[in-house]
């Protein structure tokens, strides 16, 4: 018993070390001035300084990419959360056959690899002669985010007492009030996890954005890094940026996960 425990612990830690090596690597080399990764020219906070003062080459490009990424993720996941929650409530009331059709359609964007979603939406916008840019990227992100919201809200709906909506109507709520005052609060945990999932997927997306951003020069962090890497040199300030993003997420997740057991015990 003892040996298997030690072995499994070693296994997990080796995996974690390998998984985190590149991230640690980025973090370490964010504290030196050198342009390329892996080139240590002594400790320096210049990159962080540059990042916050914006005094770097092509600073506007990187900063607007960060801004775009956050804004697109925020809009797309907000819309996806509303659309998906409404849809989940509707789907749960559909006749079995219609429900099957909806869940089949809902599965397509989740199964499709990014590149197919990207190419097919690209063709749609070309076909409809829609100028690609901000709007098309947001629409594309809503497309691949909403299924995850539906998937997160559905289980909450099935746990819910089936009469709860009717109980609200019975007590004098209009359908809209019943949605706002009863269904949404009861479904909130599912909506939140759907929103978070949508938000992170939108942040991380590269392929779909790549195909739907058009030629107006719209960049998100992913497309910016891609273009940068293909040009040859990464903007050095990406390293501190990534380090900061990682640390923020690490702290947030650790706080959430270490507090959780206590709250459930109460």
């Amino acid at each position, binding site marked *: 018993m003892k040996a298997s425990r030690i072995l499994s612990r070693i296994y997990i830690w080796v995996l974690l070390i390998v998984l985190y090596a590149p991230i640690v690597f980025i973090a370490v080399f964010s504290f030196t001035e050198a342009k390329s990764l892996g080139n240590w020219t002594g400790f320096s906070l210049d990159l962080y300084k540059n990042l916050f003062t914006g005094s770097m080459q092509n600073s506007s490009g990187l900063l607007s990419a960060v801004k775009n990424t956050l804004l697109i993720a925020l809009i797309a996941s907000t819309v996806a959360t509303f659309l998906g929650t409404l849809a989940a409530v509707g789907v749960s009331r559909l006749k079995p056959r219609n429900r099957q059709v909806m869940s089949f359609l809902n599965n397509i964007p989740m199964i499709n690899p990014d590149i197919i979603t990207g190419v097919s939406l690209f063709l749609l916008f070309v076909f409809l002669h829609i100028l690609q840019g901000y709007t098309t990227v947001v629409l594309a992100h809503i497309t691949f985010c909403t299924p995850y919201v539906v998937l997160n809200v559905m289980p909450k709906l099935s746990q819910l007492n089936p009469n709860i909506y009717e109980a609200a109507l019975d007590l004098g*709520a209009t359908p809209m*009030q019943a949605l706002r005052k009863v269904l949404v609060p009861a479904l909130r945990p599912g909506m939140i996890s759907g929103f978070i999932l949508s938000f992170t997927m939108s942040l991380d997306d590269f392929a779909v954005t790549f195909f739907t951003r058009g030629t107006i020069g719209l960049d998100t962090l992913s497309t910016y890094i891609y273009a940068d890497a293909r040009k040859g040199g990464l903007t050095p300030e990406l390293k501190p940026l990534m380090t900061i993003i990682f640390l923020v997420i690490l702290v947030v997740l650790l706080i959430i996960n270490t507090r959780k057991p206590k709250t459930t015990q109460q």
Partner: protein
Amino acid sequence: MAKDQRIINIEHLSKSYGDKKVLDDINLYVREGEFLTLLGPSGCGKTTLLRIIAGFMRPDEGNVQLEGRDLLDTPPHLRPLNTVFQRYALFPHLDVYDNIAFGLKLKKVPEDEIDKRVRKVLKLVAMSDYEDRDVETLSGGQQQRIAIARAIVNQPKVLLLDEPLAALDLKMRKDMQIELKEMHQKLGITFIYVTHDQEEALTLSDTIVVMNEGKIQQVGTPTDIYNEPVNSFVADFIGESNILNGTMLEDKRVSFIGHDFDCVDKGFGENVPVDVVIRPEDIYIKKNTEGEQFTGVVRTCTFKGVHYEMFVDTDSGNELMIQDYNAFEPGTTVGMHIHPGDIQVMKKERVANTYSGTVTGEGKVEFLGAEWECRTDGFEEGEEVEVSVAFGKVDLLDHEDDAVTVGNVVFILYKGDHYHLTVKTEDGEKIWVDTTDVWDKNDFVGIRILPKDIRLSKVQKKDE
């Protein structure tokens, strides 16, 4: 006089789901202030009827009026009715106080009045100290009280209760029954209560509406329904009973279990087949057999707390259920008698299976959605005929092979020496079967009838 005022009036209400008729031409009125119970087995349409009154469902046909005004076009949130839901449907994100205040807040009732009214109903349901509690931390019975409080705080004209006690355990259910009854008296509003529990219905109601398969079987006071069931379904569903085949010999004279008895019923005609209902507590049982109406041998005897329940095989080979305060050992020969007033005679709904059919060829007739072999002498191909099959001549098989059609057992009635089954065929028609074989409800059966047992007759022209 206000008691006799009709608060709800229901006319010709029908509702189908696909091919299934869940409500079939319901006509009913509810008097102001009464406690009315819709009673029936699951799937009888009672909940559908309640949901139509509440406004969660629209009927296909018919009308519902509240205080003389049409109700159907009013959406549920504008109806002056409130519902206590099955499994409560309390809002999990609100505490006890906010659950109860929900309806009042929507109506923009002033804050201090809400406060007053919430506290008043909390006191009424004996939950005064619980206002800040999270509803999910409450027990079933407590949630039930909050669900009732949440409904009555709005002072509805009618309170609808959909099997509110079904999820509680037996002890809790009994306590809540008493409280509900008291609450009804205190509040003075009309209660419409749905349940499948006949005992609950008898305990609580002013009026019971017995329903089965989308139709009202009987409407009456608990005593009426118990003492004078109008058909074998009601007799079987309400309380324990012995339901037996009998023959009305003449007025006030009926024959069953091989003996003739005096009774109080009349107007059936002479030598007419009837159903006879005897409640188990109405059969008087004695050790000595002399001077008694009939005799029998005790087979089993079980103590039921207050009384003993015995199954007795009579001299004519019937089985009777008898309840008595005295125990009789199994094997004892006993004498029994029944008072004329305790014999409830009911007209038989049917004495044989009858269908309209078509002769489809030499020796072949079509009815019940299938083609059967039988003798067709004297009938022509294509002729419409009346088909009659005796209850006892239908064979039920536990497989499809050799069967002409198939169906499911939907209702079982024990008649002392045999079972009377109602079997629903695939296309929704029914066939009644007398058998001594034991089947369970919902059993899938194959149906076979021997050619000689299918009787054909000319269609009688009704307009002559």
